[in-house]
């Protein structure tokens, strides 16, 4: 079973007008069920656009997007995915718990079911004791964890993340990366993860999709095989090999500029 299939997808903004921009062209990508795929590339390479196409927040100019075996629009209507952005985007006027409950509320879940699921999700991200707080009372890292709990609340088979850790400090970032991997592994969630950081992409992913700009397209796909991530993974030779591979792919050359 595949989680996401993109076939011949292109996206042109302002088609036929003065500000016409080809954001993506000829994108073919398949994400297997339970797979963790990162999108990496320079600004303007269309990685966020690609994510938004999968989420049906924008529609492709050409090609088809299939999520969970259905057209992207149907998948969105069925809440087949959870999404998180660089900004937590919590609702200030709702407590942490009620923020996490919102997607469940919109699915018509009962009050009891909502409360139970929210509690479960907040425990997962280690914020159970902050359920009654308002977002403004939390640090940026905590807000981001709430946003992730919210994205996971409906147990979506697919998680879309647009630089969710981009605004966080390095320590928080690494801790959340581990948390995310743990959660995805335990729930079997497929993930598409947009990032600017090569180490982050390598550490998290089964495959790193490398993109380039003008026009945005996929230039390379780097498979990563680090096995179970643990304390030592970030120091392992395999990790650094992966980083080097992705860096080369991003540069678009086969040979390293400086011999190691």
């Amino acid at each position: 079973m595949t989680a996401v299939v993109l076939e011949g997808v292109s996206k042109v903004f302002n088609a036929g007008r003065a500000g016409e921009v080809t954001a993506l062209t000829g994108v073919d990508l398949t994400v297997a069920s339970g797979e963790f795929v990162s999108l990496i590339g320079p600004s303007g390479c269309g990685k966020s656009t690609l994510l938004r196409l999968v989420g049906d927040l924008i529609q492709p100019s050409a090609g088809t997007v299939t999520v969970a075996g259905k057209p992207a629009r149907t998948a969105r209507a069925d809440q087949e995915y959870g999404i998180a952005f660089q900004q937590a985007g919590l609702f200030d006027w709702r407590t942490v718990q009620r923020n996490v409950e919102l997607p469940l509320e919109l699915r018509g879940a009962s009050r009891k079911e909502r409360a139970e699921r929210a509690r479960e999700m907040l425990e997962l991200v280690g914020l159970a004791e902050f359920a009654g707080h308002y977002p403004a009372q939390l640090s940026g890292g905590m807000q981001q964890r709430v946003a992730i709990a919210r994205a996971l609340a409906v147990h979506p088979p697919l998680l879309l993340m647009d630089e969710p850790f981009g605004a966080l400090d390095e320590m928080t970032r690494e801790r959340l990366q581990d948390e995310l991997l743990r959660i995805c592994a335990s729930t079997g969630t497929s993930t598409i993860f947009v990032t600017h950081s090569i180490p982050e992409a390598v550490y998290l992913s089964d495959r790193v999709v490398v993109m380039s700009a003008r026009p945005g397209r996929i230039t390379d796909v780097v498979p990563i095989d680090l096995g179970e991530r643990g304390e030592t993974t970030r120091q392992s030779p395999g990790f650094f090999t992966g980083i080097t591979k992705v860096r080369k792919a991003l540069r678009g050359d086969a040979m390293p500029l400086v011999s190691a």
Partner: protein
Amino acid sequence: MTTAVDPLVAADPTAPVIGRRRAGPLLAVLPPLLVGVAGLLLWEMVVKLGRVAPYVLPAPSAIGEQLWQNRAVVWRTGLASGENALVGLLLGAAVALLAAMVAAWVTFLGEVSIPVAAALNALPIIALAPILNNMFESTSSVPRRLVVAIVVFFPVFVNALRGLREVDPIHRDLMASYAARGWTVTRLVRLPAALPFVFTGLRQASSLAVIAAVVAEYFGGLQNGLGSRITSAAANTAYPRAWAFVVGACVLGLVFYLAALLLERLVMPWRRV
């Protein structure tokens, strides 16, 4: 593509209560109180030592004396003016909120109505008072309340519309990802996100409502409020007494402003964490 917006900054017409430096209640009240008392003393001395004529500026002690002597009348007329201001405020704010929701819903109306409302707001609406007075019987309280309602309408409308139109792009994407549309988005996102803007408008409107209710009486109509007492005392050269009623109007305005502030804090508990 959407530009990233810091939700705290974006949704912030008024400074958030969070992060504001908090002093003890005594320390917070003491400096303005001292300045106020010192100001009154200075005023008293300037009037007494400078032999300022009472029709130019009466001494605060004379005003205070008049205020005490006329306390029953100040209270009664204050209540009358307060009622006019309150009824007008509620009416004007309710109509403004409904109009803002309609204007936010119909994109074209929203584009057009902000400049129009701003232009109308610049007109001296109080000048309508004599015209309205002639439209109703002389025993009617309606004209003064209508003036208040019209004055109140604009700040509430303009602020509420701005709040309703500005939706955080992330919130918009999130609601789309939940397949939520129309009224659901309005109820769950637009209205609560607009509340800080609405209350900014209401705070402005609460002071304006009292001013309008008092001043509308200068132009005739039913004479049972503070405005008529100020004009009649001034006409009788009883300047300290006129000032005593002005003090009454000040207090009334302050009460309205504080009530709006209190309501704001009750309705938006997340802004005082």
